[in-house]
């Protein structure tokens, strides 16, 4: 009963904290660029405003257009169950509900429907955004799998809870493969969540946009669901980065004190990563679209080096 409660709290935290994380990143970016920042809870107001507004569906839209926001949101919730946020040793780890491969697959499913929805209306922008999204994701996804395979080979498991459990229980070892895996996963995070060197999250009407181009026709609560699930996706990737590579502080038993320490540590780590993300985004310029494969080939190289250095140096 207690563990079930913790799992529900974890999913709710994913839902509740992800807009705050985005607000924090936006705030920091504004401060770094010498602009006056919006309130840190501004994303919540945006979501509430969108949910209240009327939803307009284009007359050519098929069921895919209406179905996609719900699918994306439910995928995000499922991802929130699979990724350990502040506690491991939950019974869900042993229930074989899903591992890292399923996680990547779920995000691929959501992306597949989003791309279809982008093309569904038949506008030029939607098609362009969809083709760009497929270009980027087809290069980023194999790299993500390679990173996660490196972790799985280290921990002899593909389950995220068990991977983190293995990492936290083994004594501290400096692993060269993890250096590369961390860099690779950080670059994948930038590419997959549409952050600055690949896609600019702040633009709304620009010829080079990717994510925004696909969801241009959405409005009202559909748009709210899509934006919310994009925020959750960003948080899932940052949680992966912080909990796999810096697993210290995560709660290993279910007492109240260790749970609260775990929660505090996770939030601190997430906000630290938000700071790093804001600094990187301020320092980098958006790449031209045709330079994106170059960026992603470097990512792929890093991930392949991670798996190679694991095989060469650590077995």
């Amino acid at each position, binding site marked *: 009963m207690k563990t079930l409660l913790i799992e529900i709290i974890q999913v709710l935290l994913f839902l509740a904290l992800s807009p705050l994380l985005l607000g924090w990143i936006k705030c920091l970016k504004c401060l770094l660029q010498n602009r006056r920042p919006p309130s840190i809870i501004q994303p919540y107001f945006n979501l509430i405003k969108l949910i209240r507004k009327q939803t307009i569906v284009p007359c050519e839209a098929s069921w895919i257009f209406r179905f996609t926001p719900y699918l994306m949101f439910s995928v995000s919730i499922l991802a929130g169950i699979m990724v350990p946020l502040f506690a491991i040793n939950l019974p869900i780890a042993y229930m074989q509900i899903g591992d890292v491969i399923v996680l990547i697959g779920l995000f691929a499913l959501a992306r597949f429907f989003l791309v279809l929805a982008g093309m569904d209306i038949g506008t030029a922008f939607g098609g362009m955004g969809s083709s760009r999204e497929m270009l980027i994701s087809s290069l980023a996804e194999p790299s993500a799998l390679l990173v996660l395979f490196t972790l799985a080979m280290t921990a002899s498991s593909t389950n995220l809870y068990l991977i983190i459990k293995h990492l936290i229980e083994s004594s501290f*070892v*400096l*692993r*060269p*493969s993890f*250096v*590369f895996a961390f860099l690779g996963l950080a670059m994948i995070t930038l590419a997959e969540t549409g952050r600055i060197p690949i896609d600019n999250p702040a633009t709304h009407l620009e010829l080079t946009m990717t994510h925004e181009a696909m969801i241009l026709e959405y409005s009202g609560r559909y748009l709210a669901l899509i934006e919310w699930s994009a925020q959750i996706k960003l948080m899932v990737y940052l949680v992966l980065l912080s909990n796999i590579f810096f697993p210290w502080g995560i709660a290993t038993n279910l007492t109240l004190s260790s749970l609260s320490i775990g929660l505090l540590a996770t939030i601190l780590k997430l906000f630290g990563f938000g700071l790093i993300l804001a600094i990187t985004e301020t320092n980098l310029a958006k790449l031209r679209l045709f330079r994106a494969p*170059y960026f992603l*080939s*470097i990512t792929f*190289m*890093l991930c*392949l*080096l991670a798996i*190679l*250095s694991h*095989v*060469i*140096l650590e077995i």
Partner: protein
Amino acid sequence: MDSILHYQQIASTLSMLMLFAAFALLINKRILSLINSFAIQSFLLALATFGQAFILHRYAIYFSALLTLTLKVILIPWFLRRLIFKLKIPKEIPQITHPFFTLFGALALVIFCYYIIAPINLFPSIAAKNIVVVAMTIILLGMLLMIIRSNAISHVIGFMVMENGLFFAALISTQGVPMIVELGVAFDLLVAVVLFGVFFFHIRSSIDSMDVDSLNRLREDTE
């Protein structure tokens, strides 16, 4: 024993970072960042050498680490940078035609070296053997850099990278070469760089470019 184990972890991480620097050299576009990547790689090598000296308590290795630091991290990059400014060499080097294939060729070299070194059983430890694999790859990547680039400066950098890899392999597999060998190699290197500088002047004045491919078109007038 514990500290040796820690050093092995640190050395293997440093070796992988050096390998990454070699990869960065392969795909770099600007000549100054090429030199910087080389300086970073040499700095990592110097760190690894310091670590080895600390573990083995050998003053000769401290000395060679210091030599690496002054020579390859500070002196040679400074010299090359000065040459570039003096000769007004263009800062951008021509992009290699297929960076992606080059990268995968380089990755194939990693695997190749792994299979070459795997059957050899003469190393002090398994970790040393694994690190020698990486050092060997760095040597081959230096060679690859010299093959794929037609720019004379890249050739010099490729040569230095090969030397870095060789030094690293010697350091790990023999636990430090004698100081006399080390001194000889270091001064050879310094002389080589000075000679390269002279060659740059000559290439520059005869073909007015740093692209050694255009040397192929030079021929004697047959009248």
